[in-house]
């Protein structure tokens, strides 16, 4: 192990995360470095035709940033709610072999309550994509 990593002494947890921080910095450095390098070596001759957004050959009409279907919003909301649900499942899965039947029943209750919401969403057509 690198000596710089032992500076934390007892902080064992952080010790394990330091390589990740270094990796994140490296990944950013790679991405930005590559962009800068390609900026230096590539040609750059812009003209209005090149810079106009693609629209099957015709000049672009109106602004692209229009209002959008609310379906995407419903999907994002369902995603958020089920994401929170799945977060509860991770610690449960990890300790499942220690808490046994008791833990199983309570998690099934938790899922059953959320299933009510899921069935409601289904019946109301929130899962349809017409």
């Amino acid at each position, binding site marked *: 192990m690198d000596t710089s990593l032992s500076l934390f002494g007892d902080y064992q947890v952080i010790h394990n995360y330091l390589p*990740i921080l270094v990796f994140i910095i490296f990944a950013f450095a790679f991405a930005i470095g590559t962009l800068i390098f390609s900026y230096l070596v590539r*040609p750059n001759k812009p003209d209005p035709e090149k810079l106009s957004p693609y629209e099957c050959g015709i000049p672009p009409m109106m602004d692209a940033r229009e209002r959008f279907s609310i379906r995407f919003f419903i999907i994002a909301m*369902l995603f958020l709610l089920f994401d929170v649900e799945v977060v509860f499942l991770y610690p449960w899965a990890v300790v499942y072999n220690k808490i046994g039947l008791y833990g199983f029943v309570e998690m099934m209750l938790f899922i059953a309550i959320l299933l009510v919401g899921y069935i409601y969403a289904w019946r109301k057509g929130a899962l349809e994509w017409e």
Partner: protein
Amino acid sequence: MVLVKIIIILGVILLVVAYLTYLERKVIAHLQVRIGPMRVGWHGLLQPIADGLKLLVKEDIIPEKADKWVFILSPIICLVPAFVVYAVIPFSQHFYLANINIGILYIISISALGVYGIVLAGWSSNSKYALLGGFRSAAQMISYEIFLGFSIIGPLMLAGSLNTLKIVEAQSGVWFIIYQPLAFALYLIAGIAETNRIPFDLPEAETELVAGFHTEYSGMKFAFFFLAEYANMMVVSSMAVILFLGGWKGPFLPGIVWFAIKVGAFLFLFIWLRGTLPRYRYDQLMRIGWKIMFPLCLLNIALTGIIYYLFL
């Protein structure tokens, strides 16, 4: 030591991604009774390097009215998470960058950040195709991220840990794919959708959306989206190997070779599917996800819980 490991991992990712594109072109070519790239080097072996160099020196176009900073930042947001998740993947018993207790959760949560790169790339381009493609990709990715999350609960219950090394160690006897065939199938489908591959490659449905969220991108920024997609394919394959196929474990050969063989098999499957299947429609994709995969995921968790309690 850490720095050397990081450079090795980054280098291997770049090399494997480069030759994965070559392999993909060759395999698909042969599936379609063509021969694929042959000109650059012996049997076209230097093709990926030529492609890389070409992308590096290509003119880079930022469309007018684009949000310049977000336009530049989006490919970086896409690429960096795709790289840094490799930090917790154990390539063999001894070769890994970080050994953390929440390994799997780290992979899931960091790779979830890539979705911003896609939706903001679509938005910042100021092009209708890019915007619609960006929204579609993002909605697909977040939906299937849920199913991905639910499908891996089963193996995690068996392993009793989120630590990638401990999960592999828990499969010393029997691989989890034996106990968790349903979870494996669900994971695989969600993984393919998550990486926007055929048959779920709607974001790049050429026939209707030109090229989806990266329509307006060119040069190195375009290459970043490409790199991120292939790096994510490798992450999904590696996670499948860790969770279901016993990671680096296997007889005779060293661990790292077994890991490479197993991941390679998944990558081949990805390419094979692309050569074989047609594309789903967007409404079909959403229906499969929310109305079939989701109930099956919950069923798998319930079944795992009951069977585990009764027999283990």
